[in-house]
């Protein structure tokens, strides 16, 4: 297997204060590695949206980033409620977030669409009542 830098994070589902820590850490690492700002931004946005989704919808989970010379692979794994209708969830503007979540500035229904927009590959494995794993790949 090709060598890569592997970063793992616990995403705390109860804590909005730490939401974004994993993406921020990955962003910092990519900057230090000299990845161009354009790609750093894509990764940061896609991963942050995923991280926030885990906090809002799934009581947290695990984030794993694998940095290769030519791309990054990000796995966001939760044991939350799962996504009943992925096509609907992917629709811009569709959100199941509560009023409380909206008051925090989330719930615009742009999370998954942004993740797709800013990644080169995105796959969602999900089962209702079991959880969701999202894979994101951004090529450098």
């Amino acid at each position, binding site marked *: 297997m090709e060598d890569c830098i592997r970063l793992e994070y616990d995403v705390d589902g109860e804590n*909005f204060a730490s939401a*974004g820590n994993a993406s*921020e850490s990955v962003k910092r690492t990519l900057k230090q590695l000299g990845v161009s700002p354009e790609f750093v931004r894509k990764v940061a946005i896609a991963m*942050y949206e995923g991280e926030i989704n885990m906090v809002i919808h799934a009581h947290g989970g695990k984030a794993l980033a694998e940095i290769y010379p030519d791309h990054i692979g990000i796995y966001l794994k939760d044991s939350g409620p799962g996504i009943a209708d992925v096509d609907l969830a992917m629709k811009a503007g569709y959100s199941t977030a509560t009023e409380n979540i909206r008051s*925090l*500035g*989330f719930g*615009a229904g742009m*999370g998954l669409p942004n993740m797709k*927009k800013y990644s080169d590959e995105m796959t969602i494995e999900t089962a209702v009542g079991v959880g969701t794993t999202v894979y994101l790949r951004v090529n450098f």
Partner: protein
Amino acid sequence: MNVSQFVKEAGCTVFSEGEDRAIESGYCGDFLSNIISRATDACAWLTVMNNVNVAAVATLIDCACVLLCEGVAPDEAFAARAASLGIWVLGTKENVFEACKTVARICNV
């Protein structure tokens, strides 16, 4: 124009400080997903949103500063995170529209 100079000329409140960079553009919004996908680097981000996630998003978009409008002041968690991340968080009593005009006039953006 750099953030510190803007603060002097606009008479903003300073809640936390960061790297003294040039303000090159502006973006207004409260929905964080819109901001992270649309705000440009080195912008002044004008918002009335007051919570800790603003600090995280400000870092992700690499804005020059956050300008809280309409007299909004950061809560404790937001202020603490902004200070630890080194983000300029400014405040003004102006509404978002008036604050936009101020940024545009002073920074010539």
